[in-house]
């Protein structure tokens, strides 16, 4: 599903990733682990097409990122995101936040997805009217709405208690079981229990 070949990345003159190469197969639950500053968030941003790597090649679903003509549509249709701080848009309701991410032909599934995640009753509420755990579930719903091939999650439980963390991991694991590739970058070693593949990073290199 994802093939990384010789990827390096620099912020200015500072190199943060060193010549990384690996593959992630379809349906894997990959855990990207490492300390702060190890480069895992940068790697996740590159894998999810949010950041162009300084060097190297990235193939997703057989397509080279450099050669994709409409990266926005590619991202919308094939990739789902769950961020640490949920990143919901405050002035949109839960339903509208998910609708913003949804492809035209997936909009009719919004209520179904909200129902599956147990947050159907929050549909008309605004992010500042719901709890942190509920927000993160909305973020997962938003990531799932287009039935993406890959879900990227950056510290998805960083701001949650253990009960809500378990719920979020469970949701991601379910997605992986249905064939979605899940890539999670986190400090939380609890993910090892869910992961089918682990990449440990230190100082921008794979250990």
């Amino acid at each position, binding site marked *: 599903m994802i093939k990384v070949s010789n990827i390096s990345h620099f912020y200015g003159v500072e190199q943060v990733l060193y010549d990384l190469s690996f593959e992630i197969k379809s349906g894997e639950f990959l855990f990207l682990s490492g300390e702060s500053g190890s480069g895992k968030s940068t790697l996740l*941003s590159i894998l*999810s097409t*949010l*950041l*162009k790597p300084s060097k190297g090649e990235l193939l997703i679903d057989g397509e080279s990122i450099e050669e994709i003509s409409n990266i*926005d*549509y*590619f*991202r*919308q*249709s094939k*990739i789902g*995101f769950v*961020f640490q*701080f949920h*990143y919901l*848009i*405050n*002035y*949109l309701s839960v339903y*509208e936040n998910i609708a*913003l*991410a949804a492809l035209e032909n997936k909009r009719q599934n919004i209520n179904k997805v909200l129902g599956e995640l147990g947050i159907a009753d929050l549909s008309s509420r605004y992010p500042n009217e719901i709890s942190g755990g509920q927000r993160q579930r909305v973020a997962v719903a*938003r990531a799932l709405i287009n039935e993406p091939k890959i879900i990227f999650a950056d510290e998805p439980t960083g701001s949650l208690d253990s009960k809500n963390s378990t719920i979020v991991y469970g949701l991601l694991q379910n997605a992986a079981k249905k064939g979605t590739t899940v890539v999670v970058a986190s400090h939380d070693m609890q993910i090892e229990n869910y992961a089918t593949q682990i990449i440990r990073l230190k100082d921008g290199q794979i250990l």
Partner: protein
Amino acid sequence: MISLKALTKNRFKSLLIFSSITIAVMAIFLISSVSQGIIGMYSKMIKTDGDIIITQKGISDTFFSNVDISLMDKIEKIEHVSSSYAMIVGASPIGHIPIAGIYGTTANHFSHYKLSSGEYPKKSEVILGTNIAKQFATSNINIGNREFKISGTYSSEIGFEEGGVVMNIEDAGKLFNRSASFILVSCDSPNAIDEIIKKISALDSEIEVKTTQNFVKEYNQFKIIENSSFVISFLAFAMGLMGIASVMSMIVNSRKEEFGIMRALGKSRLFIIKNLFFETLVMSVSAYLFALVLSLGILALLPHVEMLQGYVNGSLSLHISLYVLFSTILMALFGSLIPAWIASKTDPILLINQGCA
């Protein structure tokens, strides 16, 4: 839909943009319409009562023009000339008022000023325009170093005249030391105007003879007012533009995270630009309408402000309204598109991270 929600969410910032656009648009409206009003008033004064105007050659302003009044006798003998009158226009302190317009005219032109009370002025007498009359409860007033009896009051549609004083041309001649500022001639046949101009021109080498239409079109003072108004309007426009651009870049900066999320969710650059532009457009057009209503209110009040003596008037033409609407949309375009473009081309994750910073 998203744009409208964003506007209501960012109320304070929306209000900032709305206010800066309203002020810029009002400035353009008021400057343009007041200058057009001044031009309109003076044009009307000249155009309503004559087809041909005679001024001193090479003098750019009627205030400094001096034409020999005795020419009137010769002019009235020319075929197709139906009437003529002479006028002196000047300005002087009147009583406690630092400056007001003084119109000295031949007796055959007094009927132009509609008497509200009293009678037309004889020697050493004046009639006062309605606006200036409100400021004098006395029966005599001092103009220059002379005292004049107030013989009546008059009304006029022209603000300049409403705030001025009318007297005999002989008295005005002594006051301003000239014969006449200009002579206006009416004709009984529009086809004869060119011929009459030639004949009048031949009477005196020191005069300039034009149709009143051409005079108004070519009058230097009007060009100066129009150009000044254009420059000041342009500066107001530029200030408005910079205000919008800076507020928009503040807004774009404070919303980088939001735009980053949208890009991460697969929304295109065009989607972000379109939404930002639509937000600014909604604010600009509503600020335009608000400024239009405020400006109309102010322009309606201006002629009644006693301190202004009716001299500052404004007319809001369709031409000005459309010009300002066009300028407003331009302000919105440039003010929002540049910061939106810069935001839209940044990597989404950088936008998200910068937004958090």
